[in-house]
């Protein structure tokens, strides 16, 4: 009985593939540090321009995440529990903004902002949605709302329908069941999804290229500022901001795993 006849090469192949792929990805993520070095990283981190952009990213992502959650949690529940005709088609249309390239979504936002609800809003409330921070929020909302609904659907799918039926049979109203039984059970999942949605909102930039454009200090959230500084040839800013973005993404995902998002959903 040699190693080959027992098929021992197969686990070896699998493990080697994992190792090789991991090495490439670690090199990819760490390449910015290797290029910039410790001393320069600290220099760029001490600049206020970096932190202004960081806070801009944080607050826009937080606002758009809260809007997405308001729509995403009930929509995710509806998608998870109710059965209606053509629901695959329905879910496909909802998923479209996250599935087509975000740059294309940015182009499509041009058309929608000159039409009914938006032109009415800008006329009556003098809120112009376009080349300002409201445009940033709209782009982030468009991409994360569908994403949020999808994550919430996955969260509610994990909770067995049995509990709702028991609660209903004991005389609780559907609303009471939702708030007292389902939401407490889904709490961890919702918080975990919330963090991921926030990270996704903070990572959105392609839509801004066509739809919003750049105003220094107003609409250049961090991923977009990377593109702008890359065009300006400011390699130090580019790599140091990439490091901040990588740290943001990694810490958001670590928090999500720590709270208990399941990895196979994600």
């Amino acid at each position: 009985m040699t190693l080959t006849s027992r098929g021992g090469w197969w686990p070896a192949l699998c493990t080697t593939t994992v190792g090789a792929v991991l090495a490439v990805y670690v090199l990819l993520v760490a390449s910015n540090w290797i290029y910039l070095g410790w001393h320069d990283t600290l220099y760029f981190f001490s600049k206020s321009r970096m932190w202004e952009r960081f806070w801009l990213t944080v607050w826009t992502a937080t606002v758009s995440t809260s809007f997405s959650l308001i729509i995403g949690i009930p929509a995710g529940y509806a998608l998870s529990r109710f059965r209606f005709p053509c629901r695959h088609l329905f879910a496909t249309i909802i998923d479209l903004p996250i599935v087509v390239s975000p740059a294309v979504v940015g182009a499509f936002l041009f058309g929608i902002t000159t039409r009914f609800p938006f032109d009415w809003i800008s006329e009556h409330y003098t809120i112009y949605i376009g080349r300002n921070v409201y445009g940033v929020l709209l782009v982030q909302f468009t991409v994360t709302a569908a994403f949020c609904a999808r994550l919430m659907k996955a969260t509610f799918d994990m909770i067995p329908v049995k509990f709702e039926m028991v609660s209903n049979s004991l005389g609780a109203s559907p609303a009471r069941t939702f708030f007292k039984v389902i939401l407490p059970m889904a709490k961890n999942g919702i918080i975990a999804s919330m963090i991921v949605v926030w990270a996704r909102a903070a990572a959105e930039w392609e839509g801004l290229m066509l739809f919003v454009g750049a105003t220094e200090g107003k609409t250049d959230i961090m991923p977009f500022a990377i593109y702008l500084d890359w065009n300006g040839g400011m390699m130090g800013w580019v790599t140091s901001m990439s490091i901040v973005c990588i740290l943001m993404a990694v810490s958001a995902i670590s928090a999500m795993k720590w709270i208990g998002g399941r990895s196979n959903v994600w």
Partner: protein
Amino acid sequence: MSGKRRSRSLFNLFFTCFAGLLFFYSAYLFLSNLDQLFVDQAAVETREIIEVWGEDREIMNEFGGGFWKDAYFWKSLNLTFAITVLTTFIAAVLGIPAAYGLSRYKIPGKSFIDVLFSSLMVMPGSVIGICLIVMFNYGPLWKLQQALGFKFAHSIFPGMVIASLVLSFAFGMSAWKAAFDSVNPRFEQIARSLGSNRYRAFRTVTLPLAKSGIVAGIILAWTRAMAEFSAVLFFCGTFRELPPSRFSDLTKMLQMDQADWVSVAVWAQVEFGNVEYGFALAFVLVLVGGISVYAMHRIGAKGYVW
């Protein structure tokens, strides 16, 4: 009794409204732009003023920028489909064994791997692009490329494949891992106790059981490769204006020369002022994305969250 039923239907209506809101927002977003394909009078007048467009003006004033007459349109589609299929193939060849290994075997640092690949999915595309360009052009791999006399960045064949592979592989692997996780390892153990070796147990037992998940993962990897924008923009750039001598005979034979990645082409055309043409390309992407997501929903893909 009827009051209870009414409260139930009110409750259902309340939640369905939110899903409906998302549905109408998304449908409206894409349908309201259909008229961007048609040329309006203002655009025609603007094009008269600007000298740069020269004789391109006439074709630009047709429906959809006259996209069906332009070789660039078909070449770009050809290029993108070919490269994404190649990317998906490479992702599947590397990703299925890797996902199986992560799902079944004891590998140290599994939670680290999990966090790394999950965080790639919420990393900005520009960061992925910058990481690629720094890794290949500013980092340790630059010397290797010089020794080989061969460039990875700003090229069609390895460049675009590398740029689209990064995220396509990460998404595909998470889907394949979920597919293998959902198969009970006991079946495989039984097959092995009956005398088949490890590879045969995988091929004849686990692989057929995880088939639908694997197909969904392949569709997901392909869709993600199609949706790639920033990594390709940063790592490869655009090719339309390059001289023909810059392209190899193989790319010319395969009709891939002087063509761009479709989503990059959308951006380039809209920025150039050829809005109708850009939207014609954009609707192709929407159609392709819609069909592949519909397929994923029908298969009932697990582990797929964008």
